[in-house]
C-alpha cells in the first residue's frame, strides 16, 4: 500500500526520545509515513530494537523497510515485550523516514491486526 506522507512542520509532537544515532539528523521528523505492512523480523536488541517490514505499493511491488525503535527497557515501559511483534504479523506502522531517502525509519507507532496500538517513542515520564 502506498505510503501516506504527512508534513507536520512546527507542530510535530512525536519527538525521538533516545535517538543517539542521529535523531533529527538522521530522520526527517517533519514527515510521517504510514504503511500497512507485514513484519519480516523483530529484533529485541540493543542499542535499539529493529523491525523489518514488507509493504506493497499501489502496483503490488514490495518495498522493504527497516525501522528502529528505542531500546528494550524503554519499550517495556511502553507496554512492549520481546514477543509484541512476530514475523508474519500484518500491521499498520507510522514512522519518520530517513532524510537520506534510504528505506530506514524511526518508529512512531504500530497498530496491530487486533486494533491494539503500541507507541514507539517516549521522553520518559
Amino acid at each position: 500500500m502506498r505510503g501516506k506522507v504527512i508534513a507536520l512542520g512546527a507542530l510535530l509532537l512525536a519527538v525521538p526520545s533516545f535517538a543517539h544515532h542521529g535523531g533529527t539528523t538522521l530522520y526527517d521528523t517533519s514527515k510521517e509515513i504510514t504503511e500497512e505492512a507485514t513484519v519480516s523480523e523483530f529484533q529485541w536488541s540493543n542499542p535499539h530494537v529493529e523491525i523489518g517490514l514488507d509493504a506493497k505499493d499501489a502496483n503490488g511491488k514490495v518495498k522493504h523497510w527497516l525501522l528502529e525503535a528505542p531500546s528494550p527497557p524503554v519499550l517495556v515501559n511502553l507496554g512492549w515485550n520481546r514477543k509484541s511483534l512476530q514475523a508474519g504479523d500484518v500491521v499498520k506502522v507510522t514512522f519518520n523516514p530517513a532524510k537520506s531517502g534510504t528505506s530506514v525509519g524511526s518508529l512512531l507507532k504500530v497498530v496491530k491486526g487486533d486494533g491494539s496500538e503500541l507507541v514507539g517513542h517516549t521522553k520518559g515520564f
Partner: protein
Amino acid sequence: MRERMRYRFCLRAAGLLGILVFASGCSGSRAQAPSSGPPDLSGIWLGKAIQSLSPSDPMAKKPGVEGDIPYTPWALARMKSERPATGPHATLENTTDPALKYADPDGYPRASIHPMKFKIVQTKDSIFQLWEYNKSWREIALNRPHSEVPDISWFGESVGKWEGDTLVVDSIGFKDSTWLDPIGHPHTEDLHIVERIRRTDPETLVFNFTFDDPKAYTKPWEGQLTFKLKNDGIMTETIYTISDELSFRQRFLNEKPPLPIRPSN
C-alpha cells in the same frame, strides 16, 4: 518547707522538660518521616530524556552559552570541542562521546539521564542505586567519612547522611573522562558533587545537585533531576556494546564495520 518548694520546682522543671521533649519529638517527626526511621526512598524510579544538566537548557539548544553554567576557559574550550552523539556529529568516527565511541560507562550523574529506570535498595548502612542502563550501580555508604585516599572511579565514591527528610550525599573521586550529561559537560578529577535527595511526594523523587570543580567551573553550580515512581517490578537489561553498535550502524547507516561484529546464532 524548703524541701517541699524544691520538690515542686523539680516537678515543674520535669514537666517543662517533658513538654520540650514532646514538642521536639513532634517537630522531628514532621521534618523527617511519619515513622521513627529515615524516609523510604526504595523502589523503582523512571527517568526522563534530557540532554543537559543546565536548568535553563535541558534539551541542549545552546551548549556552552547556557548562561547558568560558570565555565572556566579550560572547560568552555573543552565543551566547544566535544562532539556529542546527537546532532550533526553523530557518527561513530566523529563523535567524542566516550559512552558511545568507546562504550565507556556513563559515570555519574549521567547514568541517571535516560528515559529508563533505576532501583533504590535501602538498608540501614547503605543506599544502592541500580540502573537498568548498562546494569550499573553505585553505593551510597551512610554515616561514614570518605576513604582517606579514594579511588578514582567511573561512579566516584559516595557517602551520605540523613538531614531530616533529605538524604545528603557527598561524592568525590570521579574519573575525568566521563561527561556529566549527554551533551558533554566536562569535569576534572577534582569534581565534588553534593546531592540533596528527597521524596517530595509518594510518586516523586528529586535530586538537587551542586557541582563544585574549580578547574572546570569558576563557582559551584546547580542542577536537578526528577524521577517518577514506576514500581512495576520490572528491571530490563540493556547493555551498550561496540558489536551491537556496529551492527546497528551497518544496517541503518550503511557504515562498514571497522571491527568484526559478533556473529549471531
